[in-house]
Protein backbone atom coordinates (compact mmCIF):
# COMPACT_ATOMS: atom_id res chain seq x y z
CA UNK A 1 0.00 0.00 0.00
CA UNK A 2 1.17 3.52 -0.82
CA UNK A 3 0.67 5.83 2.12
CA UNK A 4 1.02 9.58 2.19
CA UNK A 5 1.57 11.18 5.57
CA UNK A 6 0.57 14.83 5.64
CA UNK A 7 1.58 16.49 8.87
CA UNK A 8 1.98 19.83 10.54
CA UNK A 9 5.33 21.25 11.61
CA UNK A 10 4.74 20.46 15.28
CA UNK A 11 4.04 16.75 14.74
CA UNK A 12 7.72 15.88 15.20
CA UNK A 13 8.03 17.41 18.63
CA UNK A 14 4.74 16.80 20.46
CA UNK A 15 5.51 16.47 24.20
CA UNK A 16 8.92 15.07 23.41
CA UNK A 17 7.33 12.37 21.26
CA UNK A 18 8.20 12.27 17.59
CA UNK A 19 4.79 11.12 16.40
CA UNK A 20 5.63 11.72 12.75
CA UNK A 21 8.71 9.53 12.85
CA UNK A 22 7.00 6.78 14.86
CA UNK A 23 4.03 6.67 12.48
CA UNK A 24 6.43 6.38 9.55
CA UNK A 25 8.28 3.52 11.28
CA UNK A 26 5.13 1.59 12.11
CA UNK A 27 3.73 1.88 8.58
CA UNK A 28 7.03 0.77 7.05
CA UNK A 29 7.20 -2.16 9.47
CA UNK A 30 3.90 -3.52 8.18
CA UNK A 31 5.15 -3.28 4.62
CA UNK A 32 3.68 -0.01 3.40
CA UNK A 33 5.45 2.37 1.04
CA UNK A 34 5.48 5.68 2.91
CA UNK A 35 5.98 9.26 1.80
CA UNK A 36 5.82 12.14 4.30
CA UNK A 37 5.11 15.76 3.49
CA UNK A 38 5.50 18.31 6.27
CA UNK A 39 3.07 21.09 5.45
CA UNK A 40 3.87 24.73 6.15
CA UNK A 41 1.01 27.19 5.94
CA UNK A 42 3.46 30.02 5.27
CA UNK A 43 4.41 28.33 2.01
CA UNK A 44 0.93 27.32 0.84
CA UNK A 45 -1.10 30.23 -0.48
CA UNK A 46 -4.64 30.50 0.85
CA UNK A 47 -7.50 29.30 -1.35
CA UNK A 48 -9.19 32.45 -2.65
CA UNK A 49 -12.53 30.79 -3.38
CA UNK A 50 -12.36 31.68 -7.09
CA UNK A 51 -13.65 28.26 -8.29
CA UNK A 52 -11.08 28.38 -11.10
CA UNK A 53 -10.15 24.77 -10.26
CA UNK A 54 -13.70 23.81 -11.26
CA UNK A 55 -14.45 26.10 -14.21
CA UNK A 56 -11.14 27.37 -15.64
CA UNK A 57 -8.54 24.63 -15.24
CA UNK A 58 -10.72 21.67 -14.18
CA UNK A 59 -9.03 19.51 -11.56
CA UNK A 60 -6.10 21.86 -10.97
CA UNK A 61 -5.77 24.94 -8.78
CA UNK A 62 -5.13 28.14 -10.75
CA UNK A 63 -2.47 29.17 -8.22
CA UNK A 64 0.60 27.47 -9.63
CA UNK A 65 3.52 29.12 -7.84
CA UNK A 66 3.41 26.84 -4.81
CA UNK A 67 3.29 23.12 -4.12
CA UNK A 68 -0.48 22.52 -3.70
CA UNK A 69 -1.10 20.91 -7.12
CA UNK A 70 1.97 18.67 -6.69
CA UNK A 71 0.76 17.52 -3.27
CA UNK A 72 -2.69 16.84 -4.71
CA UNK A 73 -1.08 14.61 -7.34
CA UNK A 74 0.72 12.54 -4.71
CA UNK A 75 -2.44 12.57 -2.57
CA UNK A 76 -4.76 11.25 -5.27
CA UNK A 77 -2.26 8.57 -6.31
CA UNK A 78 -1.95 7.21 -2.77
CA UNK A 79 -3.98 4.35 -1.34
CA UNK A 80 -4.31 6.04 2.03
CA UNK A 81 -3.56 9.44 3.49
CA UNK A 82 -2.68 9.86 7.16
CA UNK A 83 -3.27 13.41 8.38
CA UNK A 84 -1.28 14.23 11.52
CA UNK A 85 -2.58 17.40 13.10
CA UNK A 86 -2.62 19.17 16.39
CA UNK A 87 -6.30 19.49 17.22
CA UNK A 88 -7.09 23.19 16.94
CA UNK A 89 -10.51 24.23 18.29
CA UNK A 90 -11.62 20.75 17.21
CA UNK A 91 -10.28 21.15 13.67
CA UNK A 92 -7.03 20.95 11.75
CA UNK A 93 -4.01 23.21 12.29
CA UNK A 94 -3.40 25.99 9.75
CA UNK A 95 -0.58 23.89 8.21
CA UNK A 96 -2.96 21.04 7.35
CA UNK A 97 -5.93 23.26 6.62
CA UNK A 98 -3.98 25.43 4.17
CA UNK A 99 -3.53 22.38 1.95
CA UNK A 100 -7.02 20.94 2.51
CA UNK A 101 -8.56 24.25 1.44
CA UNK A 102 -6.52 23.98 -1.76
CA UNK A 103 -7.51 20.35 -2.39
CA UNK A 104 -11.05 21.03 -3.65
CA UNK A 105 -9.95 20.62 -7.29
CA UNK A 106 -10.04 16.91 -6.46
CA UNK A 107 -13.83 16.91 -6.36
CA UNK A 108 -16.35 18.20 -8.91
CA UNK A 109 -18.33 21.44 -8.68
CA UNK A 110 -21.64 19.70 -9.42
CA UNK A 111 -24.08 19.24 -6.58
CA UNK A 112 -25.82 15.99 -5.74
CA UNK A 113 -27.84 14.69 -2.83
CA UNK A 114 -25.90 12.09 -0.86
CA UNK A 115 -27.31 10.58 2.35
CA UNK A 116 -30.10 13.15 2.40
CA UNK A 117 -27.87 16.24 2.20
CA UNK A 118 -26.30 18.26 -0.58
CA UNK A 119 -22.67 17.51 -1.42
CA UNK A 120 -20.36 17.84 -4.40
CA UNK A 121 -19.98 15.01 -6.88
CA UNK A 122 -16.75 13.05 -7.00
CA UNK A 123 -14.14 13.75 -9.68
CA UNK A 124 -12.20 10.51 -9.31
CA UNK A 125 -13.46 6.93 -9.20
CA UNK A 126 -11.74 6.42 -5.88
CA UNK A 127 -10.58 8.64 -3.06
CA UNK A 128 -7.73 7.45 -0.81
CA UNK A 129 -8.47 6.20 2.69
CA UNK A 130 -8.73 9.11 5.06
CA UNK A 131 -7.05 8.62 8.43
CA UNK A 132 -7.24 11.69 10.62
CA UNK A 133 -4.89 11.58 13.61
CA UNK A 134 -5.39 14.45 16.04
CA UNK A 135 -2.92 15.02 18.85
CA UNK A 136 -2.32 17.51 21.64
CA UNK A 137 -3.92 18.51 24.87
CA UNK A 138 -7.54 18.89 23.90
CA UNK A 139 -10.80 19.62 25.65
CA UNK A 140 -13.40 16.83 25.50
CA UNK A 141 -15.53 19.07 23.30
CA UNK A 142 -12.63 19.48 20.88
CA UNK A 143 -12.13 15.73 20.59
CA UNK A 144 -15.81 15.35 19.88
CA UNK A 145 -15.74 18.03 17.17
CA UNK A 146 -12.64 16.43 15.64
CA UNK A 147 -14.33 13.02 15.41
CA UNK A 148 -17.45 14.56 13.93
CA UNK A 149 -15.30 16.49 11.47
CA UNK A 150 -13.74 13.26 10.26
CA UNK A 151 -17.22 11.84 9.59
CA UNK A 152 -18.24 15.03 7.82
CA UNK A 153 -15.06 15.06 5.69
CA UNK A 154 -15.77 11.46 4.73
CA UNK A 155 -19.28 12.38 3.55
CA UNK A 156 -17.84 15.12 1.37
CA UNK A 157 -14.79 13.28 0.03
CA UNK A 158 -16.07 9.67 0.09
CA UNK A 159 -12.85 7.80 0.81
CA UNK A 160 -13.21 4.03 0.55
CA UNK A 161 -12.51 3.82 4.28
CA UNK A 162 -11.95 6.41 6.97
CA UNK A 163 -10.67 6.37 10.53
CA UNK A 164 -10.21 8.94 13.24
CA UNK A 165 -7.66 8.52 16.01
CA UNK A 166 -6.82 10.94 18.79
CA UNK A 167 -4.05 11.18 21.35
CA UNK A 168 -3.89 13.65 24.20
CA UNK A 169 -0.59 12.41 25.63
CA UNK A 170 2.56 10.47 24.73
CA UNK A 171 0.91 7.33 26.17
CA UNK A 172 -2.08 7.76 23.96
CA UNK A 173 0.28 8.28 21.01
CA UNK A 174 1.41 4.69 21.59
CA UNK A 175 -2.22 3.58 21.31
CA UNK A 176 -2.52 5.46 18.03
CA UNK A 177 0.53 3.61 16.70
CA UNK A 178 -1.00 0.28 17.70
CA UNK A 179 -4.28 1.20 16.03
CA UNK A 180 -2.49 2.21 12.81
CA UNK A 181 -0.55 -1.04 12.88
CA UNK A 182 -3.79 -3.01 13.17
CA UNK A 183 -5.52 -1.08 10.38
CA UNK A 184 -2.69 -1.55 7.92
CA UNK A 185 -1.67 -5.07 8.92
CA UNK A 186 -5.16 -6.24 8.07
CA UNK A 187 -5.09 -4.44 4.75
CA UNK A 188 -1.58 -5.45 3.65
CA UNK A 189 -2.28 -9.01 4.76
CA UNK A 190 -5.53 -9.17 2.80
Amino acid at each position, binding site marked *: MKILILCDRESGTESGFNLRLRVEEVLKQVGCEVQTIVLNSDEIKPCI*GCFGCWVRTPGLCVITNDCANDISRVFMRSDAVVLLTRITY*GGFTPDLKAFL*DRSIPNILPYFEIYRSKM*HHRMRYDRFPWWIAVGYGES*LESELEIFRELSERNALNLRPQKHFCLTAKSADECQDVLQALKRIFTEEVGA
Partner: protein
Amino acid sequence: MKRVVAVNGSPKSAESTSGALIKTLEEYIGIKINSFRAVELVRREDAHKVIADVLKADVLLIVFPLYVDSLPAPLVKLLKQIEQAAKTCSSSLPTVYSICNCGFYEAEHNSLALKMTRTFAKRIGAGYGYGLGIGCGGVLAQMEKGPVDNVYAALRDMGDTIMAENSKESEDAFITPKMPRFLYKMGGNIGWRQMARKNAVLKQIKEKPHSL
Protein backbone atom coordinates in the same frame (compact mmCIF):
# COMPACT_ATOMS: atom_id res chain seq x y z
CA MET B 1 -22.25 52.71 23.01
CA LYS B 2 -20.94 49.23 22.29
CA ARG B 3 -17.82 48.82 20.23
CA VAL B 4 -18.15 46.05 17.68
CA VAL B 5 -15.19 44.66 15.76
CA ALA B 6 -15.49 42.12 12.95
CA VAL B 7 -13.05 39.63 11.54
CA ASN B 8 -13.85 38.78 7.95
CA GLY B 9 -12.58 35.24 7.42
CA SER B 10 -13.14 35.17 3.68
CA PRO B 11 -9.88 34.92 1.73
CA LYS B 12 -11.60 36.56 -1.28
CA SER B 13 -10.12 39.97 -2.00
CA ALA B 14 -13.37 41.65 -3.05
CA GLU B 15 -17.11 41.19 -2.90
CA SER B 16 -17.21 38.38 -0.40
CA THR B 17 -20.53 37.26 1.06
CA SER B 18 -18.94 37.58 4.51
CA GLY B 19 -18.08 41.22 3.81
CA ALA B 20 -21.65 41.90 2.63
CA LEU B 21 -23.07 40.26 5.78
CA ILE B 22 -20.91 42.48 8.00
CA LYS B 23 -22.07 45.55 6.07
CA THR B 24 -25.74 44.58 6.38
CA LEU B 25 -25.37 44.06 10.10
CA GLU B 26 -23.54 47.38 10.45
CA GLU B 27 -26.36 49.24 8.68
CA TYR B 28 -28.93 47.55 10.87
CA ILE B 29 -27.34 48.19 14.26
CA GLY B 30 -26.40 51.71 13.18
CA ILE B 31 -22.89 51.79 14.60
CA LYS B 32 -19.60 51.53 12.79
CA ILE B 33 -18.17 48.02 12.76
CA ASN B 34 -14.41 48.06 12.46
CA SER B 35 -13.67 45.17 10.12
CA PHE B 36 -10.41 43.31 9.44
CA ARG B 37 -9.71 40.68 6.84
CA ALA B 38 -8.06 37.62 8.44
CA VAL B 39 -5.92 36.91 5.40
CA GLU B 40 -4.43 40.43 5.55
CA LEU B 41 -4.19 40.78 9.30
CA VAL B 42 -2.10 37.61 9.81
CA ARG B 43 0.49 39.05 7.45
CA ARG B 44 0.64 42.54 8.93
CA GLU B 45 3.73 43.48 10.87
CA ASP B 46 1.66 45.44 13.38
CA ALA B 47 -0.85 42.58 13.80
CA HIS B 48 -0.18 42.42 17.55
CA LYS B 49 -1.23 46.07 17.93
CA VAL B 50 -4.42 45.56 15.94
CA ILE B 51 -5.23 42.38 17.87
CA ALA B 52 -4.64 44.13 21.20
CA ASP B 53 -7.18 46.71 20.10
CA VAL B 54 -9.64 44.06 18.87
CA LEU B 55 -9.53 42.51 22.35
CA LYS B 56 -10.67 45.79 23.87
CA ALA B 57 -13.94 45.77 21.91
CA ASP B 58 -17.25 44.77 23.49
CA VAL B 59 -18.16 42.41 20.70
CA LEU B 60 -16.03 40.36 18.33
CA LEU B 61 -17.91 39.15 15.30
CA ILE B 62 -16.31 36.36 13.27
CA VAL B 63 -17.83 36.08 9.79
CA PHE B 64 -16.58 33.51 7.31
CA PRO B 65 -17.35 31.04 4.53
CA LEU B 66 -17.29 27.30 5.19
CA TYR B 67 -14.13 25.76 3.73
CA VAL B 68 -13.91 21.95 3.75
CA ASP B 69 -16.35 21.58 6.66
CA SER B 70 -14.55 24.10 8.85
CA LEU B 71 -12.79 27.48 9.02
CA PRO B 72 -10.57 28.79 6.20
CA ALA B 73 -6.88 28.30 7.10
CA PRO B 74 -5.99 32.02 7.48
CA LEU B 75 -8.84 32.44 9.96
CA VAL B 76 -7.60 29.55 12.13
CA LYS B 77 -4.17 31.17 12.04
CA LEU B 78 -5.58 34.51 13.16
CA LEU B 79 -7.64 32.92 15.95
CA LYS B 80 -4.45 31.29 17.26
CA GLN B 81 -2.75 34.71 17.26
CA ILE B 82 -5.71 36.23 19.09
CA GLU B 83 -5.56 33.36 21.61
CA GLN B 84 -1.90 34.15 22.28
CA ALA B 85 -2.62 37.85 22.74
CA ALA B 86 -5.58 37.15 25.03
CA LYS B 87 -3.25 35.43 27.53
CA THR B 88 -1.62 38.75 28.38
CA CYS B 89 -4.73 40.88 28.03
CA SER B 90 -5.72 42.56 31.29
CA SER B 91 -9.01 44.08 30.18
CA SER B 92 -12.24 42.08 29.92
CA LEU B 93 -12.53 40.23 26.63
CA PRO B 94 -15.18 40.86 23.96
CA THR B 95 -18.21 38.62 23.62
CA VAL B 96 -17.81 36.50 20.49
CA TYR B 97 -20.51 35.94 17.86
CA SER B 98 -20.02 34.13 14.59
CA ILE B 99 -21.69 33.78 11.21
CA CYS B 100 -20.75 31.04 8.78
CA ASN B 101 -22.19 30.65 5.28
CA CYS B 102 -21.85 27.72 2.92
CA GLY B 103 -22.66 27.01 -0.71
CA PHE B 104 -24.62 23.89 0.15
CA TYR B 105 -28.36 24.10 0.57
CA GLU B 106 -28.56 22.93 4.18
CA ALA B 107 -27.37 25.45 6.77
CA GLU B 108 -26.47 22.57 9.14
CA HIS B 109 -23.27 21.98 7.16
CA ASN B 110 -21.95 24.98 9.13
CA SER B 111 -22.55 23.41 12.54
CA LEU B 112 -19.03 22.12 13.22
CA ALA B 113 -17.40 25.37 12.11
CA LEU B 114 -19.63 27.25 14.56
CA LYS B 115 -18.71 24.81 17.32
CA MET B 116 -15.07 25.60 16.56
CA THR B 117 -15.54 29.35 17.02
CA ARG B 118 -17.43 28.65 20.25
CA THR B 119 -14.44 26.54 21.37
CA PHE B 120 -12.11 29.39 20.44
CA ALA B 121 -14.08 31.71 22.75
CA LYS B 122 -13.89 29.12 25.53
CA ARG B 123 -10.15 28.70 25.00
CA ILE B 124 -9.47 32.43 25.35
CA GLY B 125 -11.89 32.78 28.23
CA ALA B 126 -14.27 35.10 26.38
CA GLY B 127 -18.05 35.07 26.52
CA TYR B 128 -19.96 33.67 23.59
CA GLY B 129 -23.30 34.75 22.21
CA TYR B 130 -24.24 32.32 19.47
CA GLY B 131 -23.43 31.34 15.93
CA LEU B 132 -25.56 31.74 12.84
CA GLY B 133 -25.21 29.17 10.05
CA ILE B 134 -26.47 30.19 6.61
CA GLY B 135 -27.16 27.82 3.70
CA CYS B 136 -27.15 28.76 -0.04
CA GLY B 137 -24.65 31.52 0.80
CA GLY B 138 -24.03 32.24 -2.87
CA VAL B 139 -27.57 33.50 -3.53
CA LEU B 140 -27.25 36.34 -1.01
CA ALA B 141 -25.20 38.30 -3.53
CA GLN B 142 -27.84 37.75 -6.22
CA MET B 143 -31.01 38.47 -4.23
CA GLU B 144 -32.00 41.10 -1.74
CA LYS B 145 -35.60 40.13 -1.12
CA GLY B 146 -38.07 37.27 -1.37
CA PRO B 147 -36.50 33.89 -0.61
CA VAL B 148 -33.70 35.50 1.40
CA ASP B 149 -35.98 37.55 3.69
CA ASN B 150 -35.61 34.95 6.44
CA VAL B 151 -31.81 35.19 6.28
CA TYR B 152 -31.93 38.95 6.77
CA ALA B 153 -34.45 38.51 9.59
CA ALA B 154 -32.01 36.12 11.30
CA LEU B 155 -29.26 38.67 10.81
CA ARG B 156 -31.40 41.40 12.40
CA ASP B 157 -32.10 39.06 15.33
CA MET B 158 -28.37 38.73 15.82
CA GLY B 159 -28.00 42.52 15.61
CA ASP B 160 -30.64 42.92 18.33
CA THR B 161 -28.93 40.37 20.56
CA ILE B 162 -25.55 42.01 20.07
CA MET B 163 -26.94 45.40 21.04
CA ALA B 164 -28.94 44.12 24.02
CA GLU B 165 -27.64 45.04 27.46
CA ASN B 166 -27.35 41.54 28.86
CA SER B 167 -26.87 38.86 26.26
CA LYS B 168 -26.57 35.24 27.31
CA GLU B 169 -24.84 32.36 25.59
CA SER B 170 -27.35 30.47 23.49
CA GLU B 171 -27.62 27.72 20.90
CA ASP B 172 -26.52 28.23 17.31
CA ALA B 173 -29.19 29.14 14.77
CA PHE B 174 -29.45 27.85 11.21
CA ILE B 175 -31.20 29.42 8.27
CA THR B 176 -31.59 28.58 4.58
CA PRO B 177 -33.32 30.88 2.06
CA LYS B 178 -36.89 29.85 1.29
CA MET B 179 -36.50 28.01 -1.98
CA PRO B 180 -36.87 24.36 -2.95
CA ARG B 181 -33.69 22.35 -2.77
CA PHE B 182 -34.10 20.81 -6.24
CA LEU B 183 -34.29 24.29 -7.73
CA TYR B 184 -31.17 25.50 -5.92
CA LYS B 185 -29.30 22.37 -6.95
CA MET B 186 -30.41 22.65 -10.57
CA GLY B 187 -29.59 26.37 -10.71
CA GLY B 188 -26.18 25.71 -9.17
CA ASN B 189 -25.33 22.96 -11.64
CA ILE B 190 -26.46 25.09 -14.59
CA GLY B 191 -24.28 27.89 -13.21
CA TRP B 192 -21.17 25.67 -13.11
CA ARG B 193 -21.75 24.59 -16.69
CA GLN B 194 -22.24 28.18 -17.85
CA MET B 195 -19.02 29.31 -16.19
CA ALA B 196 -17.07 26.42 -17.71
CA ARG B 197 -18.56 27.10 -21.14
CA LYS B 198 -17.56 30.76 -20.88
CA ASN B 199 -13.99 29.62 -20.23
CA ALA B 200 -14.22 27.10 -23.10
CA VAL B 201 -13.59 24.12 -20.81
CA LEU B 202 -17.07 22.60 -20.55
CA LYS B 203 -15.88 19.40 -22.24
CA GLN B 204 -13.00 19.13 -19.77
CA ILE B 205 -15.00 19.92 -16.63
CA LYS B 206 -14.76 16.30 -15.37
CA GLU B 207 -11.07 15.95 -16.24
CA LYS B 208 -8.97 13.75 -13.92
CA PRO B 209 -5.47 15.27 -14.16
CA HIS B 210 -4.02 13.12 -11.36
CA SER B 211 -5.24 9.75 -12.67
CA LEU B 212 -2.53 7.18 -13.17
